């Protein structure tokens, strides 16, 4: 009911209210608790093939995280923000997309890119330090990893909107952390998406921390998913360690977007098991006990238990998955141990479509310096 329709014996005539609700808030509100499948009765319905696929990817992801972290210790990566413990959400984000869809990862989400099929060496280029982006975003439909937090969210909205205007059936899935939800860009992106009914899915991985800052210092909201109602889009709260629940909820959100019903905000409740990056010391701001409690809710464990209980995998099967992950890790290790071939002249290559006169001068200067250096080396 609106002001206008309000009936009361003493009611004055009332004009058409400009504020008239556009949407019914009730269906936009998230569940009171995170949606779960694994460990509940609903798990029995889960497709065995999907369970196996998710399991393989999550194990793969865990191994990838471990390998990348090891590479930082060997000086082969400048920095690595691990998603250990968050593999279910990372993997599900990649698997729910069609090839024509776009993924907008944050700086942490190399695993989602890898799960989407990107060569891990390319995914890690930024973090190795040889270039800002190691792949062609158009080829893979993976936006560059975004270091400035939440800034990639409006990009996802714009791209999805553009695709819709062109009549292309493309959905964009954008990833952000709990901390990133505090940025103005988060707000503006969600608002544009809702007003434009753009085919976007916003996935917030609430891993408990923004570096050292716990969620309680980040927001006073009931849940991050509750933010959705303020934009007029549905909010979904999901157990982020439950790969099946994540896959289901994200699939629904993607389908909803694809069918023209607009954006969805999904909050995945998870936990960052490692420090913020290899350079961080997590013992400064959290206890081992807290970390330990999350081990019992490990995404691999949840899947493995389900697969085992239902007899969908045996020890040999598990070993095969692990072997496969090991092969990937060995390959990655080997390739990351090679120094990338870099040309310093590339510094000037793509600043503009065409070099400015000033950049031509500067490129000449560097060229001369490099030549002199090379001569010096020979002499």
């Amino acid at each position, binding site marked *: 009911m609106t002001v206008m329709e309000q009936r009361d014996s003493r009611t004055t005539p009332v004009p058409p209210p400009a504020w008239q609700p556009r949407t019914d808030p009730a269906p936009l509100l998230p569940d009171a608790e995170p949606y779960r499948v694994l460990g509940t009765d609903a798990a029995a319905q889960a497709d065995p093939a999907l369970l196996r696929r998710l399991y393989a990817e999550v194990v793969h992801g865990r191994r990838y995280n471990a390998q990348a972290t090891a590479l930082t210790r060997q000086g082969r990566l400048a920095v690595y923000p691990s998603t250990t413990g968050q593999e279910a959400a990372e993997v599900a984000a990649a698997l729910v997309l069609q090839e024509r869809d776009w993924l907008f990862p944050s700086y942490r989400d190399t695993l989602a890119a890898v799960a989407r099929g990107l060569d891990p060496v390319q995914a890690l280029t930024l973090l190795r330090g040889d270039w800002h982006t190691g792949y062609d*975003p158009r080829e893979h439909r993976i936006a560059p990893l975004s270091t*400035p937090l939440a800034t990639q969210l*409006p990009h996802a909205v714009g*791209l999805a909107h553009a695709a819709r205007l062109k009549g292309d059936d493309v959905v964009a899935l954008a990833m952000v952390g709990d901390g990133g939800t505090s940025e103005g860009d988060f707000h503006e992106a969600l608002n*544009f998406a809702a007003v434009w009914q753009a085919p976007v899915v916003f996935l917030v991985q609430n891993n408990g921390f923004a570096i050292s800052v716990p969620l309680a210092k980040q927001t006073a909201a009931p849940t991050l998913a509750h933010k959705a109602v303020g934009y007029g889009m549905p909010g979904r709260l999901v157990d982020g360690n439950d790969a099946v629940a994540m896959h289901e909820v994200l699939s629904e959100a993607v389908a909803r977007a694809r069918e023209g019903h607009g954006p969805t905000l999904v909050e995945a409740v998870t936990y960052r098991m490692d420090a913020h990056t290899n350079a961080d010391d997590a013992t400064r701001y959290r206890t081992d006990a807290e970390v330990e409690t999350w081990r019992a809710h490990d995404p691999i464990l949840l899947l493995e238990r389900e697969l085992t209980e239902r007899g969908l995998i045996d020890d040999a099967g598990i070993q095969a998955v692990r072997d496969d992950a090991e092969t990937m890790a060995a390959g990655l290790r080997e390739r990351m141990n090679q120094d990338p071939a870099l040309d310093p002249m590339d510094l000037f290559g793509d600043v*503009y479509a065409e070099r400015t*006169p000033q950049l031509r001068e500067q490129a000449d200067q560097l060229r001369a310096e490099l030549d002199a250096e090379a001569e010096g080396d020979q002499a």
Partner: protein
Amino acid sequence: MTTVAKPPAAGSAKPATMAQALGRALRDAMAEDPSVHVMGEDVGTLGGVFRITDGLAKEFGEDRCTDTPLAEAGILGTAVGMAMYGLRPVVEMQFDAFAYPAFEQLVSHVARMRNRTRGALPMPLTVRIPYGGGIGGVEHHSDSSEAYYMATPGLTVVTPATVADAYGLLRQSIASDDPVVFLEPKRLYWSKDTWNPERPADVEPIGTAVVRRPGTGATLITYGPSLPVCLEAAEAAQAEGWDLEVIDLRSLVPFDDATVAASVRRTGRAVVVHESGGFGGPGGEIAARVSERCFHYLQAPVLRVAGFDIPYPPPMLERHHLPGVDRVLDAVARLQWDQ
């Protein structure tokens, strides 16, 4: 950078304002290229607060000329995404100071996306910003923010000073595969010139400065809102026996060192004139370049005439801040003519 071919229709030259020429440039660009999308606050139904986009929503539909929510970072950020998908967004920022909320998107993404992706994701987008003072605007409506954009590699920074350039440079900017910050001098919106909208003349490409008035005694280097001031000053100087050359830079990035240095080598004296604050403003860069390139030709130091180093003043005091003809002439007088 591309120049724009003449549209076929004939027509006749008549007085037109810069605002009209800008509007026409948008219209022609949209008609020619369906990937051009105009977006911003009030650009649709209203046609923009300066009416530059008037009629576009009607002609091309609201999907091509879109009233956005009121959020500049969101406007520019979504435009980045649209450009990633191959569109050519033309963003309007309502006033200079209201582009600041979008600063992070501009500096960290728009300017760097091509470089970040080794050319895979160019940013063929134009950010139109009405800038500068002299129109009696209250605070935050009269900023000269070009220094910020000049200091940001990856951006092209363009500013027209004539009606023909308003059309031609805006067409070139929209056609450019690089992001352009297109600075529109507010107080020239209603300046007029004879101009043929059906056969707009080609103008020199972005990156080329133009000698608007030849002279031999000294060079005034300027752009945008200060060009008319300099031309007027040059006329007045003639009476004092100073024959001044006036250069309109047209783009701050790329900067046309060749034209500027050739002129100053010829005249031996130079004054840089702009309305932006002096300290840390564009004039420092320009004076430094000229001094370095023309050192042995200079008869006097390169001087600068600029706005004061203060927040833009309230309307009733702005005339004391804006560099006018007198200040330009004062500077010219200090060019050590007796040497």
